[in-house]
């Protein structure tokens, strides 16, 4: 596309995203993508840390007990939770067993989308509590 906008075909193209209304589905879709990309980055970071531990440069507790480490874990788990929830919704829509792939409107609606975001927010909050206060759900104090 970029090739078409620039160069000798020079003509303007309207792609001002802030002027375009995105529907709830589109928001989940793009968030699914963002959380997925974050997960990939976290995977690379995690792998680097794992190497560092394996080589004896740092200890596991250096990660789990430090604030940046905890934040990294929170980011990973929170992204994972979102990716999982929105992925679940995506799979339901894709594999809804009805004839002609007719999926109930509810799964596309703001309702289902709000549910995904709500569950994610609650989950992330719980994770943060567990990580930063320690032993949230009856673990050892």
């Amino acid at each position, binding site marked *: 596309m970029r090739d078409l906008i620039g160069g*000798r*075909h*020079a*003509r303007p193209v309207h792609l001002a995203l802030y002027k375009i209304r995105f529907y709830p589905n589109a928001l989940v879709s793009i968030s699914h993508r963002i959380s997925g990309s974050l997960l990939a980055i976290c995977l690379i970071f995690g792998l680097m840390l794992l190497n560092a531990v394996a080589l004896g440069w740092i200890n596991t507790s250096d990660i789990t007990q430090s604030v940046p480490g905890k934040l990294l874990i929170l980011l990973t788990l929170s992204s994972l939770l979102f990716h999982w929830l929105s992925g679940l919704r995506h799979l339901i829509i894709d594999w809804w067993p009805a004839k002609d792939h007719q999926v109930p409107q509810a799964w596309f609606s703001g309702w289902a989308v709000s549910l995904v975001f709500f569950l994610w927010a609650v989950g992330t909050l719980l994770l943060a509590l567990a990580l930063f206060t320690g032993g949230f759900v009856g673990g050892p104090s």
Partner: protein
Amino acid sequence: MTDNTNTGHNTPAHPTNSSLTTHQFDVLIVGAGGAGLRAALELQRAGKQVALVSKVYPTRSHTVAAQGGINAALGNISEDNWHWHMFDTVKGSDYLGDQDAIEFMCQQAPRIVRELEHFGVPFSRLDDGKIYQRPFGGQSQHFGQSQATRTCAVADRTGHAILHTLYQQNLAAGTQTFSEFFSLDLLIEDQQVTGLVALEIATGQLHQFNANAVLLATGGAGQIYRTNTNASINTGDGLAMVLRAGLPLMDMEFWQFHPTGVAGRGMLISEAARGEGGLLRNSLGEAFMVNYAPKVKDLASRDVVSRAIATEIHHGRGCGPNKDYIELDLTHLDAELIKQKLPGIRDISLTFTGIDPIEQPIPIHPSCHYMMGGIPTNIHGQVMTQTNGENYPVAGLYAIGECACVSVHGANRLGGNSLLDIVVFGKAAADHILSRPAEVCTTKTPAPKAINPALLKRMQAFQASRDTEIPNDANNDDSVVSFKRDLQQMMQRHCGVFRDQATLAAAKPMLEQLAQRLKTLRVQDPAQGFNLERIQAFECENLLAVAWATLESALARTESRGAHARDDYPERDDQAWLVHLLFFMQPHITLKQKPVQMQPKTVAPFPPIKRVY
């Protein structure tokens, strides 16, 4: 589509005087509706170099809006044969249709419809898997006995399905399309049509297309009336080109007013609504059609129903606060039937009136719908002209579809016959071009011609600054919009469902005044690319020519026949008027007569009898 359509990125050309791009093709087709696409498909598949020149993208053509269906005596629901179809069409035409052409069309119909089905048209189906058919107005079994069921339908989107299917077939065949090219004038040399000049809308550049055959498929001109079911592109561009070239138009007094346009807006509510059981009611709630056509009631021929509605309203039995419309009642029909068989008209009603026809009747009023007249052609689509009483074809020029007058519709067209007309004669014209001797069809390379000075003058006049070249007494505030509005209003008032000498004659000076206005009409938009105001100016010029033809012909025909209803001459007059009327604009306005072809080729003729339904 081809590279040729991708011209939008060109830098805008500056005034067009000398820059003229030339193209060479075997066949040039102007207009990419159903007729143009059907002809293009046949020619392209036969290996001809075809150019399809259209002022809009092909799928925007007005065939897309045809709803009800296409007639063919398939007999899928009740017994039928093409001979009965022919009888109905001859009778529907009020005996003005050429019987050899009607014979040909009705005979071809079953094959043509099956061919469309084969191309992919998603016809609605019967339980046995055959094409679904519905009853339409003016259809009968056994030469006028019981109602026939002859209209093959794709729900109520038949035209849309046919247009898109033909477009798809052309994509597969590789037809070259020049979309958004506005045709201006035919090129004629030694009595032979050799091509045309078109304006590329995106850039304002002029193009000369040379071809061995030019096929006009430019559609109707319903925009000459204020209330019409037509698209804004239906401005009779092909008709006016023909008139400017000194060739005639035929039977232009016959305009079909569709009984059921949405009141106040004009959009079409298909005859299918009545075919499926809908009833017309006046303000008293009476299903009044029984008084006008006791036998077939609401399924009488369109001219009959439109006059009935106009009469009801005239006698104060119209509905609504102003008593100015009639209601189309579908509420007694099954809701499922409406959703399945009439989804499109339900959509239109919901969108434009907010009324769900399942629950409430739709307000309707007759609306200009179809032009029975047009460019006279023979049964092969060849354009005919007349000199010294002798009729002969114009070399290299063909016309098909609504812009042509074969004539199969005569004084009144039956519902479901227009889609048939475009496909049958689209193919017939292509076949004739292919059957011509090979040397006529091979590509020559004539040198680009200088642009016709008259054409250049017109273009420059529209584009000239508002202050120059305008006589002092002219109205400088005039615009294409007000010009078109005045023309439409004038035609609506003076040449509507009912006509008489006084109103028609009163319109003539108005027409002359409009012609004067056209001379001083100026376009304010100075741009070359996508100057739609300039396109509208050309369209106004074309509409004026069509209106002129209509008015002169309507004045001359002192009888009532089919859609042409004269209050002062309420009877059909076969003695004096069983003839076609030819209207010439060049070199000066002339009316001539042409005999109706009463002799079919394979069956006995149908002599004129009184037309009752």
